[in-house]
């Protein structure tokens, strides 16, 4: 439907007019005229490779389907980020590495040239990120893309869900090098704010990170962990949770237990998906499109 329009037309048609943020429907195949001040990236999250159970009878097929769906996007993202829980936890260090190797092999089929990773607690909390680092490298890092400064934070390698003083000092030093109006995007696995402490949907010292980010005027956070789309503001900082790719979880605090949403045979893969993010660097604004795993 949107074939042939450029990104600015796309935003205008979508009624966003460059005003930030959320698209509820999938608009695949939008042709984007990628200038230096705009780009497109994709966030995938919570693939939980190795999970087995009723919440997803196609546990070994969902990730390959998601990879295929990303590859089918008319315009390929300039980079892809996986925001944690690449694998499902296991006590067995050998099995953990096997799952990571299998995951890596599957996502190796992605057409995008740049794919970045970060851990979730299922990947890293039982061995403080050791196996993750062997397969994917650093658990926290920064990179820059077309004028946007990206910060990947690790709030999972410490099983207590802490960033820790050392990482917070590293964050402070990095932010100290950024202008107050620099466009900054933060990727985390857990929410940095107290979304649902009774479900452990929080980062114990996340408030310290938000405090460090607060003087910067253009900060947006993308995260995973909660297996659903969710949007929240802490002051001027927007936090956007992405869907998972193994099973959906209920709305924060909506029931006593955070048990997975049952698989719906009438609507397979319901609640699962990934997102594309259209970044407007000059405006430091991000238009989000949600995509399903399979088209229904």
């Amino acid at each position, binding site marked *: 439907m949107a074939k042939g329009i450029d990104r600015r037309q796309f935003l205008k048609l979508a009624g966003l007019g460059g005003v930030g943020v959320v698209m509820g429907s999938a608009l695949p195949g939008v042709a984007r005229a990628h200038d230096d001040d705009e780009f497109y990236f994709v966030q995938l999250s919570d693939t939980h490779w190795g999970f087995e159970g009723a919440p997803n009878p196609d546990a070994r097929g969902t990730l390959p389907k998601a990879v295929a769906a990303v590859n089918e996007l008319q315009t390929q993202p300039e980079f892809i980020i996986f925001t944690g829980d690449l694998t*499902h*936890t*296991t*006590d067995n260090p050998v099995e953990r590495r096997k799952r990571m190797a299998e995951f890596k092999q599957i996502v190796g089929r992605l057409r995008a040239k740049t794919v970045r990773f970060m851990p979730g*607690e299922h990947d890293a*909390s*039982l061995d403080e990120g050791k196996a993750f680092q062997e397969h994917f490298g650093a658990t926290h890092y920064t990179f820059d893309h077309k004028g946007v400064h990206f910060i990947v934070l690790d709030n*999972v390698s410490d*099983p*207590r*869900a802490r960033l820790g003083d050392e990482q917070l000092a590293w964050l402070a030093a990095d932010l100290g090098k950024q202008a107050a109006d620099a466009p900054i995007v933060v990727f985390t696995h857990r929410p940095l704010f107290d979304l649902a*402490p*009774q*479900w*452990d949907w929080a980062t*114990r010292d996340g408030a310290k990170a938000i405090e460090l980010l607060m003087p910067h005027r253009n900060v947006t956070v993308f995260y995973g962990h909660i297996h659903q789309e969710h949007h929240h503001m802490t002051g001027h900082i927007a936090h956007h949770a992405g869907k998972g790719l193994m099973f959906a979880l209920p709305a924060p605090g909506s029931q*006593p*237990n*955070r*048990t997975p949403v049952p698989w719906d045979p009438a609507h397979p893969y319901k609640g699962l998906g990934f997102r594309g993010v259209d970044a407007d660097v000059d405006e430091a604004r991000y238009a989000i499109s949600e995509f399903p795993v399979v088209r229904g």
Partner: protein
Amino acid sequence: MAIDRRIAITAATLALLLGGYGASFVAAQAAAPRAKVIKLSAQRFEYSPAHFTVKKGVPVELELTSRDVLMGLNIPDFNVREDMLPGKVTRVRFVPDKTGTFTFLCDIFCGSGHERMQGTITVID
């Protein structure tokens, strides 16, 4: 005799001076209920007991320990959190100030059943 009388007067004066304090001290002692001690242990991926009942306003002292790996206890509604260490007892006190049923959970990732490791506290009047 005169000396005994002076002593009696001094004692009576002291009693009057201290009387107010002594009475309030005794009252405070009487008003502060003894803490209810609850032994709470953790073992992947459950608490024992997984549910207990306490009274509003009555202090609770939890004696925490883990039978296997490092665990956490988090009771967000009462701002209580503590590590549960294998082979060691840790004590934490709080006073439930509201009635209802409240969740406590493990907030240290401990494996494949971590997400379902939780219990409840019921607070009654």
